[in-house]
C-alpha cells in the first residue's frame, strides 16, 4: 500500500512510528551485512595464518598510494553525506543536495580509481591468481591466497558501493519531498552508505597495511 493521507502507511499509528520502524529495519539489515562480510574476514585470517610470509609478500604488491587515496575519498564521502543529513534536519534542502552530490562524486571517484586504474594495473603486473601469476615458487601459494582475497573482497565491496550510489542518487532525485519532519529515507540511506565506508575501513588495513609492517 502506498503512503496514506496523513503521511504514514496504514499499519502504523503515526509517521514517527513508521520512521522508527524504517530505521530499525535498516540497522537489522546492516547486521545481516556484517554477517555477510564476517566470513570474508575470517577467510583472510585463515589464509594469512597458512603462510604469513608469503601472504604478506603478496600484500606488498598492492598499490598503497591508490588505496590510501581511496580511503580518504570514502571517508570524506561519508562525512559529506552526514552533513547532508544534518542540513535537511534543519530544512536546508539545497545544502543537503550539494552534500549528497559531493558524496556521490567521491564514491564514483573511488570506483573509477579502483576498477579503471588499480585493477587493470594489477592485471598487467600479473597479479591475478592462476597460470600467469608472477611470484617465486616459495611465495606463490601464499601470495595467490592473498590475491584471491584481494580481488574477491574488492569486487564484493565494489558491488555494495554501486548499490549505494544508486540509493544516494535516488535520494537526490526525491530531494524535493524531504523536510525537517520528513527525512527518514535520507537517514536510512546514510546508514547504508556509512556502512559501506566502514567495510572499506576494515579492508584497507587488511589489504594495504598488514604486509607492510616493520
Amino acid at each position: 500500500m502506498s503512503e496514506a493521507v496523513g503521511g504514514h502507511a496504514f499499519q502504523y499509528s503515526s509517521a514517527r512510528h513508521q520512521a522508527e520502524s524504517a530505521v530499525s529495519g535498516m540497522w537489522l539489515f546492516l547486521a545481516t551485512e556484517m554477517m555477510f562480510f564476517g566470513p570474508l574476514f575470517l577467510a583472510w585470517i585463515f589464509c594469512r595464518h597458512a603462510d604469513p610470509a608469503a601472504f604478506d609478500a603478496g600484500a606488498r604488491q598492492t598499490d598503497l598510494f591508490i588505496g590510501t587515496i581511496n580511503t580518504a575519498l570514502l571517508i570524506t564521502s561519508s562525512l559529506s553525506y552526514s552533513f547532508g543529513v544534518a542540513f535537511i534536519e534543519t530544512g536546508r534542502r539545497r545544502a543537503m543536495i550539494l552534500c549528497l552530490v559531493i558524496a556521490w562524486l567521491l564514491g564514483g571517484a573511488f570506483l573509477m580509481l579502483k576498477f579503471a586504474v588499480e585493477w587493470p594495473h594489477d592485471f598487467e603486473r600479473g597479479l591475478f591468481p592462476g597460470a600467469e601469476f608472477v611470484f617465486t615458487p616459495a611465495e606463490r601459494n601464499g601470495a595467490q591466497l592473498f590475491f584471491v582475497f584481494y580481488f574477491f573482497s574488492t569486487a564484493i565491496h565494489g558491488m555494495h558501493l554501486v548499490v549505494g550510489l544508486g540509493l544516494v542518487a535516488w535520494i537526490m532525485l526525491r530531494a524535493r519531498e524531504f523536510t525537517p519532519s520528513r527525512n527518514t529515507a535520507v537517514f536510512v540511506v546514510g546508514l547504508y552508505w556509512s556502512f559501506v565506508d566502514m567495510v572499506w575501513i576494515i579492508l584497507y588495513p587488511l589489504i594495504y597495511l598488514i604486509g607492510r609492517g616493520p
Partner: protein
Amino acid sequence: MRSLLPQASANAAEVDYLILALLLASCLVLALVFGLMLVYVSRYRADARVERGKLAQKTWRLEIGWTAATFVVFFGLFLWGADLYVRLFQPPRDALQIYVVGKQWMWKVEHQSGQREINALHVPTGRAIQLVLTSEDVIHDFSVPAFRIKHDVLPDRYETLWFQVEKAGVYHLFCTQFCGEGHASMIGEIVAMSPPEYEDWLGQSASGAGAHESMAAAGEVLFTRYGCGGCHGEGGVGGKQSGGGVDAPPLAGLYGEKVTLDTGAVVTADESYIRDCIISPEKQRVAGYPPIMPSFAGQLEEENLLRVIAYIKSLKPTERR
C-alpha cells in the same frame, strides 16, 4: 546373509553397548510419550465424563525437574560417547602402519613390505592396525562398518584411523563421503586373517608376479632419483656447508622426534610434517638452517611420497652431530 553386523573389532562391542543404551533410553522416552498420548486421547477426549479435577498451579517445579533430569541423562551420554571417541582417536604406539590412497574411484593400499592392493586390505587379527590415509583428488571416507570405524580422507593431508580386528573374516569397505559418479562403486573388502595366515599372505605376494620391493626400498630409490641425498646426505645423515655441501638437517632418526621451527614453535615430526616439508617447505622452516629447500609439489605422486616418507622413517641415526 548376516542380518546383524559382526562385532569384528575390539571396540565394536563397546560402540554397540553405547548404541544399545541409547536405544533403551529412547524406547523408554518413546514409551512415555506415546503412552501418555494414548492415555490422554482416550481418557481426556472431549466427551469423556471423567473427573478432571483442578489443574496443578505450581508447575514450575515439574518444569525444572524434567529439565534437570534431561540434562543429567544427556551429560551422561555425552561422557560415555566422548570417552570411547578419545580412545578411538589415539592409535597405540606399536600399531602396524599401512598406507591408503583414495582416488576417484578406488582405494589403493600399500603395505610397508611392498604389497599393493586395490580395493582390498589384508590385515592380521589380534594386532593394532593404523591406516595412514590420503586422497589424490576429492574428499573420500574410509569406512568399515564391522569395525564401527570411519574417517574422512582428504587431499594434501594425512589422516589416520586405527582398529584391532578380533574376528577373522571378510568385511565391507565403503567410501562414505560423496565423491562423484563412482562413489557407490568405491567399495572393497577388508580381509582379516590370523597372524600366521597373514605372514603367509605377505610371503606369497612378495614372491609372486607383480611383487614389489618394500616401501622403504622403493623410497630409497626415489630419494636418490630426486636428489634428496645431495643436500641431506647419503642415508639422510645431514649436510654441512663446511663439508662442501649445504646446511641441511639430518633425516636419520627424525621420525617421531620433536623439531624446533624458526618461529620458535616445537612440532613432532610425523608423516604430515615430513610431507609438508617436501611439498611446501616454506610453511615451516627448521630453526638453525637456511631456508633453501625447494618444493617438490606436483613432482611426486601421493604413493611415491608415501614411499619416500617410509624410507625416511626407516633411517636410524648412526651418530649424533
